[in-house]
């Protein structure tokens, strides 16, 4: 009943925001939604592994990712208020209604306990994200939205083909919702070719959401024009939705003979993602696109971690959590940077330390965290991935991955340092900088602080939840 109430109240809040046409009421409702979301997450923690409404369950992995979304909810809402403050009422309200819808759909996707319900919620997120990317109503926004919707639709169509192949394996009326539990006991007897095809379709399809190779382009373009708080969600919690969908199928098939095949495919996808991220980051001229490629790099590492198996599973899930906190901080900071410098073009950025010291500090600490340089908690995750590769004797992958990460570190650090300390290369097009209150960076410092603390201490409740999330996988 609690879950149903959550969905109904969320829907009512979204509809009220659109209908009431008042910015103050919109702010109150949106903030109330974020608070309600946090309360709902607490409820999920106290009811772990409980099934509700037949199609949903408060499973460990779902609750872990839901907690990340809850953590991000209030800062995202706050930065959204700031970003959209100058908009006309209708545009302002559509933005917030779509934000409420997106967070509700992501919640549904995290908690779905069957493929079909998960797929429906993933499809629904595309609608909400489309409305948010199109927020500025420019030609570029239209192009980005079009690409996003088209590629995502193709992706979810392919993912659906994967689900249909699962249906061919089962082909019985008593598993109409394709719940994960109903499949677990027939996978061992299924035709491995069907399982392989289903996995490849699901991987390609949901990689539109995870931002993984080969469908990574969709999120890169979306970041160029999406409002920064929305980029923060697309690059973190929405990517987590894509990961969750792939990981669910991976877990389901892990008891079958195709486990080595899945691991190889994931490592291949991960390495290609790393390669593309490194290549494009070296020539990036747009700050948000550079961060988007950094997300591609991190998702590549997550895929490699899962492919490695063993300690890689823990590393993958911890990396997802820490990446979400770090990348969202950097994207929130992009909103402030654009208000100070009025641009995302690297050639026009510079002297940030002088213009906005708090923001410059976020960029430097954020860079250290995202590049997994100690004392970033992400260092632990990458260390575990490399340890797993050594353990599996996958030396070629290890060396190539380290080499590609060196390119990523070089590309990002040289650009961030230029923004913070150097003069802009193109001074002519500069507008006078605006003042932004340093207090706006509080949430970013908090998140980055958490990432640093995780390098030295990972709380037992988090470790337990992560361990439970992959407990059914072979070690």
């Amino acid at each position, binding site marked *: 009943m609690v879950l149903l109430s959550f969905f109904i109240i969320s829907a009512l809040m979204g509809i009220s925001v659109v209908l009431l046409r008042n910015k103050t009421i919109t702010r109150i409702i949106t903030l109330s939604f974020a608070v309600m979301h946090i309360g709902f997450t607490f409820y999920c923690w106290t009811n772990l592994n409980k099934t509700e409404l037949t199609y949903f369950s408060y499973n460990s992995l779902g609750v872990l990712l839901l907690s990340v979304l809850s953590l991000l909810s209030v800062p995202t809402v706050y930065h959204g208020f700031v970003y959209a403050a100058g908009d006309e009422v209708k545009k302002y309200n559509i933005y917030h209604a779509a934000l409420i819808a997106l967070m509700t759909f992501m919640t549904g996707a995290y908690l779905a306990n069957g493929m*079909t319900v998960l*797929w*429906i919620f993933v*499809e629904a997120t*595309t*609608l909400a994200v*489309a409305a948010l990317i199109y927020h500025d109503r420019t*030609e*570029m926004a*239209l*192009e*980005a*939205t*079009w*690409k996003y*919707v*088209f590629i995502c*639709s*193709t992706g*979810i*169509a*392919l993912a*659906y*083909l994967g*689900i*249909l192949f699962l*249906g*061919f394996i*089962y*082909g*019985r*009326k008593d*598993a*109409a*919702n394709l719940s994960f539990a109903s499949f677990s006991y027939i996978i061992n007897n299924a*035709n491995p*070719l*069907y399982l392989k*095809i289903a996995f490849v379709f699901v991987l390609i399809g949901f990689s539109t959401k995870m931002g993984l190779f080969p469908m990574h382009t969709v999120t890169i*373009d979306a970041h*160029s*024009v999406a409002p920064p708080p929305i980029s923060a969600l697309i690059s973190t919690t929405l990517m987590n939705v894509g990961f969750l969908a792939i990981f669910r199928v991976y877990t389901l098939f892990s008891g079958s003979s195709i486990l080595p095949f899945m691991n190889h495919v994931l490592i291949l996808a991960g390495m290609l993602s790393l390669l593309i991220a490194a290549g*494009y980051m070296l*020539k*990036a*001229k*747009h700050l948000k*696109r550079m961060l988007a490629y950094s997300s591609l790099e991190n998702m590549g590492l997550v895929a490699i971690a899962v492919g490695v198996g063993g300690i890689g599973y823990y590393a993958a899930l911890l990396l997802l959590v820490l990446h979400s906190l770090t990348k969202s901080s950097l994207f929130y900071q992009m909103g402030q940077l654009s208000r100070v410098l009025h641009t995302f073009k690297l050639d026009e950025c510079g002297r940030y330390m002088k213009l906005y010291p708090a923001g410059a500090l976020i960029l430097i600490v954020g860079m250290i965290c995202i590049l997994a340089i100690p004392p970033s908690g992400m260092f632990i995750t990458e260390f575990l991935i490399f340890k797993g590769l050594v353990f599996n004797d996958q030396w070629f992958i290890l060396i190539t991955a380290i080499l590609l990460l060196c390119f990523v570190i070089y590309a990002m650090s040289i650009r961030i340092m230029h923004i913070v300390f150097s003069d802009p290369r193109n001074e002519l097009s500069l507008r006078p900088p605006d003042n932004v209150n340093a207090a706006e960076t509080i949430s970013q410092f908090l998140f980055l602080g958490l990432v640093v603390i995780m390098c030295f201490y990972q709380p037992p409740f988090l470790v337990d939840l992560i361990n439970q999330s992959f407990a059914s996988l072979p070690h």
Partner: protein
Amino acid sequence: MVNYLIVLFAVTLVYFAAAERLLIYSRLIGLQGLLLCGIALFELKEINTANLIFIASETLFFKALLIPYLLGKIISRSGVTKVHHQAMPGFYLLILSIFALLLSALLASSLVNPFVNTIYMAIALFTLFTGLLLIVTHRLIISHLIGFLIIENSIFIFSLAVGNEMPMLVNIGILLDIFVGVLILGFFGLRLKPHTNELTMLKD
């Protein structure tokens, strides 16, 4: 009867490779909608009547009427009638299409399954490959849209193959149709400039 309809459906796919006019593409999509409606009516014998009526009417309304209508509107707005000045020549596409048919037949024969008819599997795979081919070999946005609609039809055929056992899968496939029909064609299709391939503002 179902087999005749499926073979006729495959013929429309080969025609896609040979056709040059966008209007023909739009009509072929409409014809495919009609054929799918017929296949659904003959194939889904075991599901309840209300669900069957819903599926048939959705196929007729969305696939055979609304989507071709929206495509026609986009084509008339764009003023472009032929595709091949911005795409791979039809001859090569036709050869690729035949290869895709052979590959589909081979794959289908190796994917024998008690729940799925081999001919269903072969044609559904051929439909999927044709859609992907159109997207890859054409540069016009409208051709990409049509490629995607063909992929949609492939999914519909796949879902019909297990429709009697799992009607929910067919209904979810319909959800995808509505999503595409309304959002992609109705909203974005009419706002973009379909005669161009200039979606290049966003690049590195």
